[in-house]
């Protein structure tokens, strides 16, 4: 075995690539990479580290489904994309998303019963109520309003707070943290401070839920764990942190972008407004089309593996770009077209393999309710600014809109 990787292409452009030319689509370079290269090297802007990216649907599934790929942030080759300071990383109790089996399996099974399809569907009436209240407020205020502030953020945030059993006064604090965790541009000090503050808060929350359990996800996971004894206090804190990180701002981002995508396709919007039974399929297509967490599906190889002839060595990092996979014409016909009638199942927007987003069914219900209600109650909704002037989260790990002026 030699030390050089002789087969590697020399060019390693800065990552992430820009999606500014067409803000509702992944970076246009992905299309060329899917055709020309099995895997390519990029240089992470946040760390200068060289890692692999793969762009095709079957490759992304291969990487995310492989037992020889680790999610462990603490392994040196892992492609971290936010400026997590080494000393913070060292002491961090890793969240579910950064664990491998068997530790991952035990913790995921402690959480999943709380997020089953049935339980998420049971939240529908409450999600409807919260959505209606916020649309009432929008209508009372009169346009133009910022849809992100008035609807996209508060609805999933309040639902989430109720789910984990904390009051609505926590919304701003949680949102700030969730945003910092996906911010590629904050300093390591700011990252560390946000992490520390939230750690202290969640330590207190887990203690409170242990002593005085309520009717919520966190209390039930803790109560059940008291019987099995599988998880330590810090594991429960890490689980709460993971819920916050994964479940808080993601839905808000897709509500904002999805609204723009539907308004850009008025014929399809009219169809789904006339027949709301089409909405679940439309929502699935929006997940595929928008792929807000394109590069969040990253791994590090624990053994040498080959991907379409390219050798990835043990210890090397790899980002399996789900947003590129979701635009792969080997898997989806005419992939750059939003088509609410297509069968978008098989998209990888929630990841693939044993780490697939455990909150996916909550988001499905939330988006079904929010979009159906928004466009039926405000049928004349339109953008109050040209799309070129909208503020997209171009540099964030999770894509979305900072604000979205709408009127009617």
């Amino acid at each position, binding site marked *: 075995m030699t030390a050089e990787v002789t087969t590697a292409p020399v060019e390693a452009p800065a990552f992430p690539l820009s999606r500014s030319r067409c803000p509702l689509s992944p970076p246009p370079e992905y299309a060329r990479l899917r055709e020309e290269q099995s895997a390519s090297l990029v240089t992470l802007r946040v760390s200068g580290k060289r890692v692999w990216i793969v762009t095709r649907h079957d490759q992304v599934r291969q990487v995310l*489904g492989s037992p020889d790929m680790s999610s462990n942030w603490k392994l040196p080759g892992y492609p971290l994309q936010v400026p997590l300071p080494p000393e913070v990383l060292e002491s961090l109790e890793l969240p579910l998303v950064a664990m491998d089996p068997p530790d991952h399996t035990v913790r*995921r*099974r402690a*959480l*999943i*019963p*709380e*997020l*089953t*399809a*049935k339980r*998420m*569907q049971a939240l529908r009436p409450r999600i409807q109520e919260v959505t209606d209240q916020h649309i009432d407020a929008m209508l009372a205020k009169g346009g133009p309003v910022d849809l992100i502030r008035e609807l996209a953020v508060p609805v999933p945030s309040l639902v989430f707070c109720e789910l984990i059993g904390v009051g609505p006064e926590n919304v701003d604090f949680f949102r700030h943290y969730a945003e910092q965790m996906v911010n590629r541009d904050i300093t390591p000090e700011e990252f560390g401070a946000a992490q520390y503050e939230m750690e202290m808060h969640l330590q207190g929350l887990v203690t409170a839920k242990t002593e005085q359990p309520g009717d919520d996800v966190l209390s039930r996971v803790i109560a059940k764990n008291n019987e099995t004894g599988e998880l330590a206090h810090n594991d429960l804190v890490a689980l709460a942190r993971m819920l916050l990180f994964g479940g808080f701002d993601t839905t808000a981002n897709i509500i904002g972008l999805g609204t723009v995508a539907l308004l850009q396709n008025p014929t399809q919007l009219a169809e789904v407004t006339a027949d709301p039974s089409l909405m679940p399929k439309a929502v699935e297509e929006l997940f595929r089309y928008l792929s807000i967490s394109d590069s969040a599906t990253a791994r590090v190889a624990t053994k040498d593996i080959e991907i379409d002839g390219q050798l990835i060595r043990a210890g090397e990092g790899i980002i399996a770009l789900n947003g590129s996979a979701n635009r792969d014409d080997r898997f989806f016909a005419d992939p750059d077209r939003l088509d609410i009638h297509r*069968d978008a*199942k*098989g998209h990888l927007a*929630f*990841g*693939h*393999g*044993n780490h*697939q*987003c*455990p909150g*996916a*069914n909550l988001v*499905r219900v939330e988006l079904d309710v929010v979009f159906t209600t928004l466009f039926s109650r405000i049928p004349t909704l339109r953008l109050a600014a040209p799309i070129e002037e909208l503020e997209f989260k171009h540099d964030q790990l999770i894509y979305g809109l900072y604000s979205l002026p709408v009127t009617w």
Partner: protein
Amino acid sequence: MRIRYDRDRCVGSGACAFTLPEIFDQDEDDGRVLVLIERPGAEHRKAIEDVAASCPVWALSVEDE
């Protein structure tokens, strides 16, 4: 036809139970798949095959008997 499922592989994504709640459910204890109707009618075949294809860990399949 018969639904084959592998509870050892299942990670409880609930994609099956969300899409076809009349056929699939999830265990209240560990969130993993429960098959309510192991031998559904042939008219469900396409829908079940689609759900099996979207399972993130390939835990489901349909076989002929």
